[in-house]
Structure formats: structure tokens, C-alpha cells
């Protein structure tokens, strides 16, 4: 099934299982969801549980947070990460802080989903990849599905958490198809997954970049280079042991991230390798990130700005040239 369908089924399953679960967000109901994830759910669950909101990101995300404190289990859909900036205060200063600031009295079991990423020629304001910012914030957990199975499992896993969980769904993934086992255990989503085992170099990616990275690994394989692809899956908590274990075996790493280079989450991964696997490295960790430009509309410019399989493969080759 598609990534979109997997997400929808997880929402439906969760809503059937627990009457406190509901979905709210802009155009999740009558419109059917701007990425059609929730299409049909309004008819199935009614307007009390599939709640269309006004364009008030701070207001309805804050309301979602409040409703979680009040005993509901909201799934708040912020249409895209771009608009989540308008709700950032509620997420960073309320959702993330309340448990600690209240001395452990008040938890915020809210799940916030949003589309992220570029690649559809939507221009600078609609192409952000800011999940790394959220991963900076203690009190939040951040998941980034790269395959339909995870699109499904992560929603269910997130709803089990007593604390706020953000799920970033790359907008280019919704049409991706793969088998999904809806009965599979979901706890694994908090750990990085080796999507392709390999020996010579570790390619580390998450979310929408995993596909490109697998393509890069295929290209490298054609050149006789056996690359491992590690899908981080959870950015917070970050599965540092899995990263270190892989690099200790391969001695080289390329980190791929659609965020702009400077201050990218890839920098964090590079720093963790520095701290945890320095003596295993045969070459410096490389990063393949977006160019330092507001993502342009024109296709040739957008393509040039974003990480590509070619750039990933060539970064890997660059490392193998060393040492």
C-alpha cells in the first residue's frame, strides 16, 4: 500500500481502538487532507473526531496540547513544517516544557504530524526541512518515517508515548508503495534501521532522503563499492549506538540531510561520530545537505540545491579516495 494509505490506516486503527484519539488540523475533514491522508475519515468518524480547524496554527496546536493535558489523545496535523513556525512557541515553550517545569505533574501526550521537505517546486516558503530544529528540544520526540511500514508504525508508536511526539512525513513519500504489516510490533521505530548492509562506507539518512541514499548505494555497488545505508528513523532520541556501531565497521560515513548545510541535523550526526567513533574513522565524515539558498522554484535550480543520489555517491567515493 502507499505511504499515504499506511498513515491513514494507522490513524483509523488508533481511532477505533481508543475513543479519546482524534485528528485535528486544517482541511483534514471536508477537503480530505491536503495530502489526502485523512480522506474518508470524516465520513467514518464524524466531525467531533475529524476536526477541521481555522487557519490558526498557534491556536489549534495549542488547543491540541491543552486537550492532551485534559485527557484526550490528539493527533494534530499541521499541514506542513513551513506553517509549524507559527506554532513553534506552543510546541517549544508549552508542550516540551510542561512535564519538567511542573515537576513531573503534567504530561502532554500529543502527537503532531506534518509534511516536510522540498522537491515539488513549491518555492522557498514551502520547501523547508526543519525537523532538525525540533530534534534540538528536550521534552520532544521526533520521528521521520521513510517507508510505508514506518508511516504506519510511527503513528501507533507515537500514540503510546506519554510525551509529545512529532512525526515528519516527507511530502514526496506519500505515493511510495510497499508492503505493510499492520500487525507488526511498533517499538522498533525508536531505533535506527540498516536498510542495506554494507562494508565500505556508511550512508546515513532519514525520511525523504533514504530513497535517494539507497539509489546512491546502488550506484556505488555498480562501481564495486559496498555501502551500508542507515536510516535514523528517530531524530530524538537519536540512536547514537547504532551510528557508532556501523561506522566502527565501515570506517567511513556520509550523512545526508535535506536541511541547509550550516546548522543541519547532519552536523549533529557528524559530531556524534566525532565523539563516538573518531578512532575508527579512515576519512572525515562528509555531509550532503541542501545548498545555502532559499529553495528555488525553477526545477533545474531546485534539483541543484537538494541532495541527489549523484552527490551522495560522489561524496562516498571522495572518502574512499582518502586513507
Amino acid at each position, binding site marked *: 500500500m502507499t505511504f499515504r494509505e499506511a498513515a491513514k490506516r494507522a490513524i483509523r486503527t488508533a481511532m477505533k481502538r481508543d475513543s479519546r484519539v482524534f485528528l485535528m488540523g*486544517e*482541511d483534514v*475533514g*471536508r*477537503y*480530505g487532507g*491536503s495530502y489526502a491522508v485523512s480522506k474518508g475519515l470524516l465520513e467514518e468518524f464524524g466531525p467531533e473526531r475529524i476536526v*477541521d*480547524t*481555522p*487557519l*490558526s*496554527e*498557534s*491556536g489549534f496546536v495549542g488547543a491540541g496540547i491543552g486537550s492532551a493535558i485534559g485527557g484526550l489523545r490528539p493527533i494534530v496535523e499541521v499541514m506542513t513544517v*513551513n*506553517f509549524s513556525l*507559527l506554532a513553534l512557541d506552543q510546541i517549544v515553550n508549552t508542550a516540551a516544557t510542561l512535564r519538567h517545569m511542573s515537576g513531573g505533574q503534567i504530561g502532554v501526550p500529543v502527537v503532531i504530524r506534518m509534511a516536510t521537505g522540498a522537491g*515539488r*517546486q*513549491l*518555492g*522557498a*516558503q*514551502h520547501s523547508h526541512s526543519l525537523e532538525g530544529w525540533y530534534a534540538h528540544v528536550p521534552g520532544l520526540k521526533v520521528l521521520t518515517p521513510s517507508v510505508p511500514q514506518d508511516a504506519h508504525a510511527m503513528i501507533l508508536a507515537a500514540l503510546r508515548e506519554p510525551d509529545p511526539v512529532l512525526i515528519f512525513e516527507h511530502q514526496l513519500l506519500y505515493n511510495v508503495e510497499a508492503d505493510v504489516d499492520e500487525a507488526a510490533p511498533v517499538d522498533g521505530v525508536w531505533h535506527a534501521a540498516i536498510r542495506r548492509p554494507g562494508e565500505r562506507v556508511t550512508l546515513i539518512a532519514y525520511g525523504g532522503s533514504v530513497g535517494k541514499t539507497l539509489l546512491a548505494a546502488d550506484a556505488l555497488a555498480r562501481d564495486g563499492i559496498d555501502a551500508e545505508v542507515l536510516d535514523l528513523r528517530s531524530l530524538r532520541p537519536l540512536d547514537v549506538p547504532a551510528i557508532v556501531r556501523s561506522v566502527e565497521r565501515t570506517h567511513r560515513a556520509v550523512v545526508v540531510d535535506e536541511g541547509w548545510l550550516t546548522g543541519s541535523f547532519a552536523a549533529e550526526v557528524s559530531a556524534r561520530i566525532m565523539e563516538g567513533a573518531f578512532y575508527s574513522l579512515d576519512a572525515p565524515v562528509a555531509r550532503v545537505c541542501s*545548498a*545555502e*539558498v*532559499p529553495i*528555488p*522554484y*525553477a*526545477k*533545474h*535550480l531546485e534539483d*541543484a*540545491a537538494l541532495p541527489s543520489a549523484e552527490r551522495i555517491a560522489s561524496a562516498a567515493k571522495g572518502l574512499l579516495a582518502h586513507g
Partner: protein
Amino acid sequence: MTLERAGALELLRRMVLIRRFEATCAEAYGAGKIRGFLHLYDGEEAVAVGSLSALAPEDNVVATYREHAHAIVRGTPLGTILAEMFGKATGCSRGHGGSMHLFDAGRRLFGGNAIVAAGLPLSVGLALADARLRRRAVTACYFGDGAVAEGEFQESLNLAALWKLPVLFLCENNRYAMGTALSRHQATTDLCAQPRAHGIPAESVDGMDVVLVREATERAAAAIRETPGPRFLEFRTYRFRAHSMYDAELYRSKDEVRDWMANHDPIRTFEAWLRERQWLTDDARAEIDASIAAEIATALAEAEAAPLEPLERLTADVYAEPTP
């Protein structure tokens, strides 16, 4: 200004041009020449044409992502608008922006903004600059009914009213924010209520009637130039097409749309008005169609032929210059 025949025909011409231009865009989208999000203005032509034709060249215009019409009426060459959507270097934003980000600094068109309501604070600032620099310009700030729910709407109304700034808030109320009908996103559907609560004179106008739109805008702009302080106009209109090219329109009935198209088309309404006054003949109408067809064909040819921005310029316009 009373509307003379020539001026009136020009209004018609612009509305028709916009309608045809949007059809051209839709076709180009189908052909894969335009990509990204594309929001068309069919049905709302009287709003941009009527209001912008009442403004002066020194006035500022801040629009939304549904802003082809605003660029056209402002005078941005058609070829550069199309080239923009084709991602070409001759585009009015060099192909960096696309349909949602048409800019034309010379004509004081400050975009094209894809963040709902984000243009409102910007407009307050442009008006602040005019006030401080003792310029008599008005800042025309366009936004949809959906933007009214964003906090920036209230913040901007309050700032403009508090500081008595020359902002003309122009709400393009097409009754839907994507798939959410006005009554399902606003507790009070009278959109003049909030501006009035801030002490801002506000008026609702039939946005399907270009003459009324123009008159109301003229009055409001004149009032702002006379007595400093913002004004608010709600233009009641309707979007004939889908929200964007991805919208299945599950949220409204075909009948509703058909009714609006059949009975409230701003172009047909205005044509009838013109014919009543004997200002429009069949020949004149045909002439308009023909000249518009030619104009669009030329623009298309220009846009098609235009070069792409060279890849070396990928990061060229991020900063004006490197730091010392």
C-alpha cells in the same frame, strides 16, 4: 473619478485578459510547463481589476499566492509572469519564485506570499515607512478570508489602527479557505466586525461588480490619503476553479459552483452593464478577445524562448554582497 467609456472598456479588457491568462496557465500546467502550486483567480477578476485600477503607481501592493491578476493589472509584462512560472531567467522573479511569488519592485508589487496572512505585517511596515518618510502612498494589502483566522490579522489591524497608518486592508472573501467554508472557520462571518472592533472603518462590497469594487476602493484610498489611518474592505466573491491544481473539491457541490458561474460571473455582469450603456458592441468585444489572444501568444512565445537561470547563479541572490 467617474468611469468613462474608455476606462470602462479597459476594465473589461483586463478582466478578460486575466480569465484567459489563467486558462493559459492551467493548460501549461497540464502540459508540465508550470509546476509547483498554481492558484487561479477565475471568478474573482473584478476584485483585483476594480481595486488596483483605483490606486496610484506610488501605492504599494502586497498580495497572496493567488496573485497573477494583481501583477497583470499592476502592469508587470505578461511574458515575464509566464516566464516566471516556466522557471526562466527572464521571469519577473528570475524563476526563483514561481506562481506564488511574483515580484515587481518597480511597480511596487511586493509579492506574492505563500504563507497565509504573512503579508499583513509587511504591509503595516511599508505603510510605516511611507508615513515616516512623508509619502502619501497607500499600501494595498490583499488577503483571503482564511487569513482572518490567523493571529497576524489581529496584530496587524491593531498596529495599523494604533499608529494610524495608511494601510488599505482588502479581504478577498471567496467563502472558502481551501476546503473550509467561512462559517466553519469563523465564529462571526461578518468580516467587518473585527476591523470595527479596532476602530477601523470597514465596508462589505459586492466583489463580483467591478464598478462597485472600484468605487469603494477609490473612496477608501482617498479617505486614507486625507485622514491618516487604515481602512478595511471586504470583497465578497467566489472562486470558480479548484483551490489549486490538486483539489478534488469535495467540500462544495457542483451546483453551487455552477450557480455562481451562471449568475454571478463578474465579466458577464460587467458586459451587461456596458451593453446597457451602449458602450460595448459585438465588434469591440471580438476585438478585445483577438488582441488578448495575440498578447498571450506573444507572451507564451517569449516565455518559451527565454533562457534558464545559469546554475552558477544558484546562490547568487541570497545576499546582496558578501560581508566584509
